[in-house]
């Protein structure tokens, strides 16, 4: 009987763990991902037909870029990202043309820069608030 209870608890724990895996990280990234899609769509003037073909390819591209080792030396990491961009350049060009593909890579960097700037602003505001609170 003790063995039965032990195994039952193990399976319950397993199910509970699986249940806990759902949720937060994806939800958290959803808003920024929506901002990214909106920004690129707006900047590249993507039509609905283009978007239906463009975003699945962009998703594969994004997955590969994120899989580049974060602990790599910076130049190697940048080179790996560059290789991925070159690899997908043809696929993007077939959908939106080479000029807009070039524009996509620029706007992709620009979006991250906007995020960085926003982050800097948030932190500077917080820092200033803390300093004024001390004074």
């Amino acid at each position, binding site marked *: 009987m003790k063995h039965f209870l032990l195994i039952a608890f193990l399976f319950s724990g397993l199910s509970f763990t*699986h*249940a806990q895996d*759902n949720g937060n990280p994806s939800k958290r990234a959803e808003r920024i991902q929506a901002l990214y899609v*909106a920004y690129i769509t707006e900047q590249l003037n993507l039509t609905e037909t283009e978007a239906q073909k463009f975003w699945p390819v962009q998703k594969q591209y994004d997955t590969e870029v994120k899989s580049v080792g974060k602990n790599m030396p910076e130049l190697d990491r940048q080179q790996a990202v560059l290789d991925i961009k070159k690899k997908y350049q043809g696929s993007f060009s077939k959908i939106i043309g080479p000029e807009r593909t070039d524009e996509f890579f620029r706007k992709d960097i620009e979006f991250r820069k*906007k995020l960085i700037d926003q*982050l*800097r602003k948030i932190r500077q505001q917080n820092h200033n608030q803390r300093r004024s609170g001390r004074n």
Partner: protein
Amino acid sequence: MKQHPEIEQELKDLGSTLAGVEPVNIFRVPEGYFNSIVHDVLLEVSPTKAIPEGSVPEGYFEGLASAIIEKINQEETADLENIALLPELKNMNRTPVFSLPAAYFDELPEIINSRIKEDALQPFLSENLVFIRNINPYQVPAGYFEHLPKSIIEKVNIGSAAPVIQMSSRRSLFRYTAAAVMAGLLGLAIFSTFNDGRNKQLVADNLDESTMRAAKTIVQKGDFDAVLSSVSDQEIVDYLSNGGEDVNAALVASVAASDNLPDQIDYILDDHTLDNLLDGVITN
């Protein structure tokens, strides 16, 4: 020879015959006796009476020992017979007073060994055990072991029907219930695992769909900046880190490129101006 009246009186009181003996020295030695005794003894011992110097008579050593012993015995006997002062000794019976059983010394080692064993065991045994120690308490009837297997088999076969224990239906029902519960849990866990993976895929698909809807809304409303300003610090850090970005390095670069860097005078007035600037951005 000097007389001692006290001793003489004492001997008389005791009634000893010695009291009547005259104190005369009965031992007399001829003049020059000890000067010639060595030569005389040798002459007496030797059967030839004369021993030429440097030569030994034939068979001299073969009979020498017995001749010496015989001579000694003769002289001792003569001495005893010549003791006039002890006439009682002559009348003494010369038969040995000590006697031994026949073959005494042949059995002596065995007797000694058995006595040693008994003495060695004695301190460790109680009186009863000493009494029974040589008695074998176990006795087996004649032919006991020859007939033993047969007798055992006969006894075992008596009432040969083995007892049958009926399992209660309640116990078996409990086991079936436990097995069913286990199977259910196992199935649930497997279903949950696979279904969870499927759900994740669905969530991912829905995420893309919902992301696209949210993006469409942002584009239609034109509120990109408003939504961006509502995003939290941690959301941005997670997103950029997930994309392989070094957030701190990017922040420093952003600070350097921004328009609101401190003036030169600020660095002169406060040594910690740059530290404060970077602290405010990096260590938030």
